[in-house]
């Protein structure tokens, strides 16, 4: 048997090898199917009663499933139950039956009426169509007296393959026996992907041809690459087993971030809301390195009030219970326009009034935000770190520090995202308590490349030597002055680049919380002198691919095997 390869979109970094089980969709029931019980066709009155009673029965089943589940699975099932108990859906179906439509056609017609409106509306509503269809399938099965789920009972650990899996179908599986989920449809942000993420299962969606794989065939599922290998060879199986073992190891590791010789590096999370902070309560992170406060401001016609802001900041400070929280003041403009803060018709918004520069047009926004943060600090007794985005000159840094200190905020810093700020690192650092490098914007401005232009992504590679040079010189200056230099941005979440940054003297790395375990693992397997050597290798490269290759060739082989 030869190995064949299917390609989809992976969710997460996990990988696994196991036999396939196909979960077939429920058999289609024809619009004019005859509803019978014990071989006898029901009368029109009986049919109406059966349909009428099917709605609360399906809702009750889903509510029961929701009660048995936890977290996201429970939320999704509860939302699906709400659709099943919706009076309009039931009313619309019965109206059609009373008008003489066959029962299955009536259910399909009512569901499709809403599905069409939702699909046209797009966005969040369009995602609910899967839930609507899941409710429809259960209603039809209930009315016909058929089994309501096609989920097979699982005897051994398997890779579940389906065209698409509604959340209710996913929840109906014996999740202890599921190794991975592979679907032909579905999106990387859809319900099934979210549930798989919560359960820590490898998941690959949008895999054409997945349902053609025969049951029992062994496949290797790699969410890091999105690849499905049918009949994998021994070498691949061994590699995936090694990765799985390492993943178990680093998922269980909650020690503080440090190199193997004990050099401390704070591993921090990027968040956008107070709720995100709540979710970090039990996470092994040393705090929050970037609280993007603009999330509070987006999609609004007016700025949130001081009370509203203060509440959100206090929630985050309280949730982290004294761990470090770095709050970034409003970063509006460019790709994040705000109705009340952004100037309309800027020809070059990325180079216009954005980030800290908003203070020129709207000093009140900054004042309110700093007042709210100071209020939250006082209320919780936790001192937040605060920093301003898009600082270009030491004078701007001095101005921001004065505004923050006037309100009693103790630890004040700025972001280094503009090359001018990195080049002036010494003057800048002497104004502030700390800096944080926003490597995504620093790359955009250093390479003169729009972050939103996908076709130029090679120029925005975080391994670009020019960007690394600016990071290195800023980190070196911070070390000389004894001030913390952090990195928040894509760079920090790449375990190999994290080693390089640590070698340069970066003191904290902030990333999405899911990226922390791999970075912690890489750090713990290298000592500081090795990281410094890796930094030299990267800085001596003349291109991004060369920098990456040089570093990968020099890291511990076990780490390369574990992280892929």
């Amino acid at each position, binding site marked *: 048997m030869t190995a064949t390869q299917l390609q989809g979109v992976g969710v997460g970094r996990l990988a696994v090898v196991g036999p396939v089980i196909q979960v077939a969709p429920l058999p289609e029931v024809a619009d004019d199917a005859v509803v019978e019980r014990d071989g006898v066709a029901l009368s029109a009155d009986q049919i109406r009663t059966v349909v009428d009673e099917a709605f609360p029965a399906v809702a009750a089943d889903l509510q029961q499933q929701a009660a048995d589940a936890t977290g996201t699975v429970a939320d999704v099932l509860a939302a699906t139950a709400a659709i099943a108990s919706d009076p309009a859906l039931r009313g619309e179906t019965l109206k059609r039956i009373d008008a003489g439509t066959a029962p299955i056609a009536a259910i399909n017609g009512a569901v499709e009426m809403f599905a069409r409106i939702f699909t046209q509306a797009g966005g969040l509503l369009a995602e609910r169509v899967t839930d609507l269809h899941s409710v429809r399938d259960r209603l039809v099965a209930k009315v016909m007296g058929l089994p309501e789920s096609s989920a097979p009972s699982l005897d051994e650990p398997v890779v579940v393959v389906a065209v698409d899996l509604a959340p209710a179908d996913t929840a109906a599986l014996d999740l202890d026996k599921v190794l991975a989920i592979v679907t032909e449809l579905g999106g990387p942000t859809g319900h099934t992907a979210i549930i798989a993420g919560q359960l820590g299962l490898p998941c690959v969606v949008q895999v054409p041809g997945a349902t053609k794989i025969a049951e029992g065939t062994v496949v290797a599922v790699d969410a890091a690459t999105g690849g499905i290998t049918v009949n994998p060879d021994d070498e691949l199986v061994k590699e995936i087993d090694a990765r799985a073992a390492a993943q178990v190891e680093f998922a269980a590791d909650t020690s503080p971030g440090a190199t193997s010789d004990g050099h401390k590096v704070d591993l921090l999370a990027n968040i956008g809301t107070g709720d995100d902070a709540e979710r970090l309560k039990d996470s092994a992170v040393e705090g929050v390195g970037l609280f993007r406060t603009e999330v509070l401001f987006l999609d609004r016609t007016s700025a949130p009030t001081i009370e509203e802001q203060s*509440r959100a900041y206090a929630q985050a400070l309280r949730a982290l219970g004294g761990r470090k929280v770095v709050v970034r003041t409003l970063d509006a403009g460019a790709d994040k326009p705000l109705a009340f803060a952004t100037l309309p018709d800027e020809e070059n918004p990325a180079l216009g009034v954005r980030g800290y520069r908003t203070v020129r047009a709207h000093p009140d926004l900054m004042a309110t935000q700093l007042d709210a943060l100071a209020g939250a600090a006082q209320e919780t007794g936790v001192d937040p770190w605060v920093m301003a985005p898009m600082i270009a000159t030491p004078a701007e840094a001095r101005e921001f520090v004065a505004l923050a200190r006037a309100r009693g905020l103790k630890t004040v810093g700025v972001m280094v995202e503009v090359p001018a700020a990195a080049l002036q690192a010494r003057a800048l650092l002497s104004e502030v308590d700390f800096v944080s490098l926003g490597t995504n914007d620093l790359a955009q401005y250093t390479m003169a490349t729009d972050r939103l232009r996908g076709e130029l992504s090679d120029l925005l590679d975080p391994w670009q030597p020019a960007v690394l040079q600016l990071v290195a010189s800023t980190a070196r200056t911070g070390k000389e002055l004894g001030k913390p230099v952090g990195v928040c941005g894509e760079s920090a979440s790449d375990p190999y680049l994290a080693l390089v940054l640590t070698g340069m003297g970066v003191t904290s790395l902030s990333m999405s919380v899911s990226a922390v375990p791999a970075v912690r693992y890489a750090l713990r397997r290298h000592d500081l002198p090795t990281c410094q050597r890796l930094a030299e290798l990267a800085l001596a490269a003349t291109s991004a691919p060369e920098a990456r290759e040089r570093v990968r060739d020099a890291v511990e082989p076990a780490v390369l095997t574990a992280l892929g």
Partner: protein
Amino acid sequence: MVTRTVKVASTSGLHARPATIVSQAAAAADVTINIGLPGQEPVDASSILLLMTLGAEHGAQVVLSAEGDGAQEAVDKLAELIETNLDDPAVAS
């Protein structure tokens, strides 16, 4: 008939979580409460599906109406809920 016009305060508009809370509150009322955009056909506020199809965004005006005993009270209660930002974590918890 009692009618009242209110502004949607929830950040995400009448979607997702706010729609769930509003439809449940409407279902719990003793009278049928209708909700609609000004000048358009109103819908049953206890239906989460119909509520979401209104597409009422943050800041939109919606018209509530009800008839019969307790209509005023029911409309006022629902109006208060719609005028609250139900996406605010401090309100929700």
